[in-house]
């Protein structure tokens, strides 16, 4: 399809290597006014790297960039200031917020501090930011420290910051902005983006959520191994088709078949009764061996608190939790001994040991089995890691390298492998596919199903309703800390989950 209009952004032949490893190999991209352009691709395919190059944070080895009315620029020397001058605005994958500074200061860090006699004009800054937040329907105090905001609010702050001025000719780039956003906020965001595009702005949008891509984007460019595999309109694509473009091969299905409903065993593996903890009010639920139970709910509805309670990481105010009939004391170690495992929500902060190697990240929860006569046996650790790498198709340059060198999806697989090695009786996963590409996601779903079939009770908390609807045998919906619905069988579907998450939203 040819467009007569001039491209708002024309990027050509971008090359970039980290050390000897090429990450971008001749990538090109055109963005047109009024267009929402999706950038898709597997984990580690180079999306974030391309975006960092465009932002002038990483320097390309080669490549050019052109925006209307300016000469062609060599990307090799392209810096943050030049990027900003070219009209590019960003919401990066890890948001770029400084947690222990205020919301207003975070705005000013990227947009500049208003000054008076060389000093920051605090009141002017605060007013401008308050104004901006209001327009985004964000009930956030500009003087609040970002650390005190919920993850979703943080994302929205980063978005509001990037969108802060609406000059024409701007190009907005968002790298997985919805990864930690619940349904409602995703809708607000997508709405805002669509309106901007309608006004003639160009938007480059990275997401692993295929449905989002298909409903929002006009065009999609698919990266595979650092090259452009395809760039075409979304109109003639469906989810499976897009997944095949990303995979580069045919894909039959994204979700594994559900369990055949069988006779429930007498006793559930986990039983929660009248639990009050954090935002949770008298929550009761259970999970049986062999099933995948979803936990749905809005932001702050208490999903994470529920999972963390089951893992002994939160001390409940009242109520009881039993595993295999035995009461669970509020201790992570006790929970682990009882066979419980948790893949936490915030990978960077709660799961990864950034300066330890892939091997050490893999074996940290199973050290005892690699120990003989008090010695840790490196060969045993390496073997276990190799198994995990094969098993999960983890893309890793060398197991001795730091875990931070892996792409997000691959990091997530390492964390999952860490826990599966313990062969848990209860596997808890909090936002398990956040930032994970569609194929890896399919892998993970398949693995979760296998694990369940093998007799483990799997509990998945997620903001991705599509994921819950397609993966889970049952879904418990939380609303404001209380169970608002227990869905099973054919009830497990997007509309029902959404409805029970929101119902009485005003009332609560």
């Amino acid at each position, binding site marked *: 399809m040819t467009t007569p209009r001039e491209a708002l952004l024309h990027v050509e032949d971008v090359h970039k290597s980290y050390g000897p490893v090429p990450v971008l190999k001749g990538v090109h991209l055109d963005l047109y006014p009024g267009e929402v352009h999706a950038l898709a691709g597997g984990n580690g395919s180079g999306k974030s790297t391309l975006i960092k190059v465009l*932002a002038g944070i990483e320097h390309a080895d080669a490549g050019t960039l052109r925006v209307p009315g300016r000469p062609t620029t060599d990307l090799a020397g392209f810096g943050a200031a030049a990027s900003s001058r070219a009209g590019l605005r960003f919401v990066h994958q*890890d948001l*770029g917020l400084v947690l222990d*500074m205020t919301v207003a200061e975070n705005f*000013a*860090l990227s947009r500049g501090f208003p000054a008076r006699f060389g000093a920051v004009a605090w009141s002017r800054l605060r007013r401008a930011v308050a104004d901006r937040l209001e327009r985004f329907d964000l009930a956030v105090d500009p003087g609040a420290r970002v650390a005190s905001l919920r993850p979703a609010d943080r994302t929205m702050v980063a978005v509001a910051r990037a969108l802060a001025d609406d000059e024409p000719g701007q190009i907005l780039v968002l790298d997985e902005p919805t990864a930690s956003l619940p349904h409602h906020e995703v809708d607000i965001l997508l709405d805002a983006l669509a309106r901007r595009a309608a006004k003639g702005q160009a938007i480059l949008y990275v997401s692993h959520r295929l449905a989002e891509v298909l409903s929002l984007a006009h065009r999609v460019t698919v990266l595979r191994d650092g090259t452009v595999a395809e760039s075409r309109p979304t109109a003639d694509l469906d989810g499976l088709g897009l997944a095949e473009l990303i995979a580069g091969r045919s894909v039959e299905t994204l979700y594994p078949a559900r369990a055949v409903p069988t006779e429930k065993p007498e006793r559930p593996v986990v039983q929660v009764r009248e639990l009050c903890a954090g935002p949770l009010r008298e929550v009761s639920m259970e999970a049986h061996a062999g099933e995948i139970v979803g936990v749905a709910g809005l932001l702050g509805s208490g999903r994470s608190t529920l999972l963390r309670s089951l893992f002994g990481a939160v001390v409940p105010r009242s109520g009881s939790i039993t595993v295999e009939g035995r009461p669970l004391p509020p201790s992570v170690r006790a929970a682990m001994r009882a066979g419980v495992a948790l893949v936490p929500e915030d990978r960077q902060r709660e799961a990864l040991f950034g300066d330890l190697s892939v091997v050490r990240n893999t074996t940290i929860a199973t050290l005892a089995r690699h120990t003989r006569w008090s010695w840790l046996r490196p060969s045993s650790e390496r073997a276990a890691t190799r198994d995990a790498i094969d098993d999960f198709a983890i893309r890793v340059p060398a197991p001795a390298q730091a875990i931070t060198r892996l792409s997000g999806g691959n990091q997530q697989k390492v964390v999952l492998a860490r826990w599966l090695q313990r062969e848990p009786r209860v596997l808890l996963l909090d936002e398990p596919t956040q930032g994970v590409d569609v194929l890896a996601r399919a892998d993970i779903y398949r693995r979760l199903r296998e694990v369940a079939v093998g007799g483990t009770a799997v509990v998945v908390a997620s903001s991705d309703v599509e994921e819950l609807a397609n993966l889970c045998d049952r879904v418990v919906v939380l609303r404001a800390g209380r169970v608002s619905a227990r869905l099973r069988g054919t009830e497990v579907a997007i509309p029902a989950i959404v409805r029970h998450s929101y119902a009485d939203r005003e009332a609560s």
Partner: protein
Amino acid sequence: MSRALGERYGLLLLLAGVCLFFGVLPASAAAFPTAANLQAVLGNIAVVSVLGIAAVFPLVGGHFDFSVAATSLVSSITCAALLSDHHAPLVVGVAGGLLAGLVVGLVNATLVAVLRLNAFIVTIGTATLLPGVVQWYTGGVGITRDIAQPLRDLGSGTWLGLPRVIWPVALVIAACWFVLGQTAVGRRLHAVGSNPAAARLVGIPVTRVSFLAFVISGGLAGVAGILLTARNGGGLVTSGVDLLFPALAAVFLGGTAIDPGRYNVLGTVVGALFVAVSVSGLTLAGAADWVPDVFNGAALVVAVAVSTLLARRRGTP
């Protein structure tokens, strides 16, 4: 709210309490609350607070700096050598001292900000190396001859009832407070120290900002060196360590006050004052010579304990 105030001004209150205590304690009451003692105390905090502030800049930017004291030593010797060995005019001596500090700052800045080497190690390296350089130049002999009288007067004289040396120090304090807390550059430095990755993502030139922090630190250590020359009436040859620990103690004590949990300029000054006043009071009261050390060490631990526990109860990190 009152708890927050207690946290912000706790150390200041404690300082007031210490003043009151030694002001009424019979053993020290005669000499402690006198203008002469105030002058002595203020004179003594001059170098320490400037050195402390010199350490605050890299610390805010997320880097430790062990080398400030050694740098001030080099700068003091440079200033004295210019005046004494080379009979340079006073301005040249002062400029030379400042320049020496800036040069060390530049070297640290290049190693840490540009080459991204571990600041801890680099600055322990410079802190080890610099006294050797001083030893080489001086042959171990302090330079105390022909120090310009105005510089000596700066170290020993008074002006408006306060030690003369405190006036430039006040200027330095005000300027640094302004730069770190009230300007875009200062806030960017905080951002870099708090989350360098995020800072890079929002387009802050992280390298340049860290670089600047070390250069400023070197410059301030240079100022401290000049003040040292003024106070000592020359350039003395020491290891520098005897200045480092008190300066760090002031910074850390100060990190529990004014802007608790964050290293800050005014807190550092209060920290330096607290130590100086306590030591002066204890000495005047005739306490044994081991008491000040024990007192200072304990004060540091208690201050950080109180401010941390208060902050934790309030729920701020």
